[in-house]
């Protein structure tokens, strides 16, 4: 029960207003979990002092795993003893974040039994976040979770919990089965997910098409983004229907095409598919009339990350097109080679994208056995500082001129 005595003057302000309130959530949880009162108390203190009150780190976890738990300790445990430990568990979500009511209740049961009853649905990487428990509850929570068919997600220098967009489960544009790939990658790399063996974290995200609804190009070391090779599927009658309904096809569609490869004569829409860069815009605007082609697969990109410490990176093209049915195999083979190189040459806390920038893309390609292709670059180099290789030059000895 919420302690009547907890002063939350500032936090109470955040119960007002139309958007659902996280303060209300904490208060709700405090009805069943007394630790939440101390959480409220410490948070109110932070609001008063404009300063967080959590201590840095602390390594805790479950037996045999090196990841999945974030240790957290209060720096004012004397005031708020119930959050003296307040670790979170990262629970690997089901691909696509699909649940049944039953599954959710199972999770709730476990978490009410062992922790604060507070969660994030979901964390930024995709995990179910169980927010706050004590050290000695970790192992029991884990046991209950695995019994219920759930496992922990990643933290630390591991492969992190892969995630994906809803894909073929509910999206007509998915160029490959994102949920399946996400699930299979997760299962394939259970060891790499739980036991830190890398220089740093490694994230996979699977998006079904270039709309990238799971932000893979910005947030994953390996981004798998669906695309197609042949022509956009076009239904002329449906195009005409959109036009009849008032869509300005010239202005809204053609003029926004990045390559200006579409022409509309008032009756017929013509796409020069040879010039199309699969940006999705026209398809997004007219989903009934235009659809991705039939020869589907994905582009594999590498290296996205947040800015610490060399600046943020977006992923860059590694393999322009892999047919849908070859994706898993290709990725497994490729990932093995990438991890091997990264594990050997990556510095401590160096993401793969940073490693590539440090050693150069060409050397990275050599190392993982891929041929350079022009699709990998926005433009060729503009500086003349080429490291010509020995076999190209004809080395000579002698003491100069």
């Amino acid at each position, binding site marked *: 029960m919420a302690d009547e005595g907890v002063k939350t003057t500032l936090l109470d302000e955040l119960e007002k207003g139309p958007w659902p309130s996280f303060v209300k959530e904490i208060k709700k949880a405090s009805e069943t979990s007394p630790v939440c009162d101390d959480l409220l108390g410490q948070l109110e203190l932070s609001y008063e002092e404009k300063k967080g009150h959590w201590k840095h780190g602390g390594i805790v976890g479950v037996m045999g795993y090196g990841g999945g738990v974030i240790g957290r300790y209060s720096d004012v445990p004397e005031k708020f003893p119930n959050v003296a430990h307040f670790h979170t568990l990262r629970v690997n979500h089901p691909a696509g974040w699909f649940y049944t009511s039953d599954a959710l209740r199972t999770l709730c049961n476990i978490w009410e039994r062992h922790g604060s009853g507070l969660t994030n649905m979901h964390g930024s990487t995709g995990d179910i976040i169980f927010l706050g428990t004590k050290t*000695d509850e970790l192992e029991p929570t884990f046991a209950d979770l695995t019994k219920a068919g759930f496992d922990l997600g990643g933290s630390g220098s591991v492969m992190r919990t892969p995630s994906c967009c809803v894909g073929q489960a509910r999206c007509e544009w998915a160029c490959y089965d994102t949920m399946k790939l996400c699930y299979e990658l997760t299962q394939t790399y259970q060891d790499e997910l739980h036991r830190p063996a890398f220089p740093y974290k490694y994230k996979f995200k699977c998006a079904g098409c270039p709309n990238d609804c799971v932000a893979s190009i910005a947030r994953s070391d390996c981004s798998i983004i669906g695309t197609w090779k042949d022509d956009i599927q076009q239904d002329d009658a449906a195009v005409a229907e959109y036009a009849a309904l008032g869509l300005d096809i010239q202005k809204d569609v053609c003029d926004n095409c990045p390559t200006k490869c579409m022409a509309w004569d008032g009756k017929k829409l013509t796409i020069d598919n040879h010039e199309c860069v699969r*940006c999705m815009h026209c398809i997004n605007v007219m989903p009934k009339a235009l*659809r991705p082609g039939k020869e589907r697969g994905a582009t594999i990109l590498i290296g996205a990350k947040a800015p610490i410490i060399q600046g943020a990176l977006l992923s860059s093209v590694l393999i322009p097109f892999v047919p849908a049915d070859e994706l898993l195999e290709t990725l497994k083979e490729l990932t093995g080679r990438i991890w091997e190189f990264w594990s050997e040459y990556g510095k401590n806390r160096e993401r793969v994208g940073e490693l590539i920038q440090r050693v150069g893309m060409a050397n990275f390609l050599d190392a993982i056995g891929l041929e350079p292709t022009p699709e990998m670059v926005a433009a060729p180099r503009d500086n003349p500082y080429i490291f010509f290789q020995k076999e190209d030059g004809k080395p000579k000895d002698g003491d100069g001129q």
Partner: protein
Amino acid sequence: MTTTPAPAKRITDIGPPHYEKFLHPLIKKNYGQWKYHESVASGVLRHVAESGDEIYSVRAGSPRLLSTATIRLFADLAEKYCGGYLRFTSRNNVEFLLDDRAKIEPLKKELLALGFPVGGTNNAISNIVHTQGWVHCHSSATDASGIVKSVMDALHDRFTHEDLPAKLRIALACCLNMCGAVHCSDIAILGVHRMPPQISKETLPKVCEIPTLIASCPTGAIRSATYDGKPSVEVTEEQCMFCANCYTVCPAMPLNDPENDGISIWVGGKVSNARSAPKFSKLAIPFIPNNPPRWPEVVDAVVNIVNVYAKHARKYQRMGEWIERIGWPRFFELTGIPFTRYHIDDFRYAGTTYARSTHIRF
């Protein structure tokens, strides 16, 4: 909270449950066979399969930080309206998956009554991707949930209405680690420090590896020193740009400071490949002090940018596409945001950000 003993035979490495178990039968049936979708109302989508089957998704806003009580509530609603099938989105909204159109309105009503707005689809502002802040992280320069709540209160109508020129994605991260992955958002709210690390001289030698610490600083601001005869470090304050990488590797280098921590605002990023390539967000406002509990200056700043964008951008133009059309000088003019020395890049690729043409609007 009770404690259960660890079982004798531990189950490990099972991974997550297979997603198929959680799929609506209609979704399982039409998996990979969806034909098109359309908008039914704000927050409600209709997906039609090749088979003619239809599934309706009702999307509700969520604070992300959820009590089990609320999750149980969602479970109950799902059971009541759609056979217990629901999902969460990549932006932390909850989606109820209905095969019966007639149940949409009753579900919406109940959600609204419970305080969960329905919306976030199409050209609405969706939920704010965010992080832990003072609720759970040691690293934060600001809170996360409190700002998100305050901003979304002010943008509530933009969540429930789809009347912006294009999608507008807001994200928040409470420190430069950017767990909220704010770096590619239409509007990014980012916690920043402005004080160099304050060395906890007593604890440092005990808890940190000094060579690793020194190596962690991208600007080389950290040098070895001795304190009380013990090895320690010194920071050249002019060389510090407050990234907190030192703190990440060494707890004895905290940077937080009530007066100097605060918020910066970034604009014009995007993730999708629609029309233009993905883009990073760029600096709009370098610093706004933390002002809990409702951060009114941050809210005003975000609302102002949203309004100016809504008024001036053309249909289908994301924030960054609009700004690229009108040029950055005009963005600063229209929003009234002052341009300062901090806007001029001085990091790794600074040279590529200078205006190297005479293309200027007067």
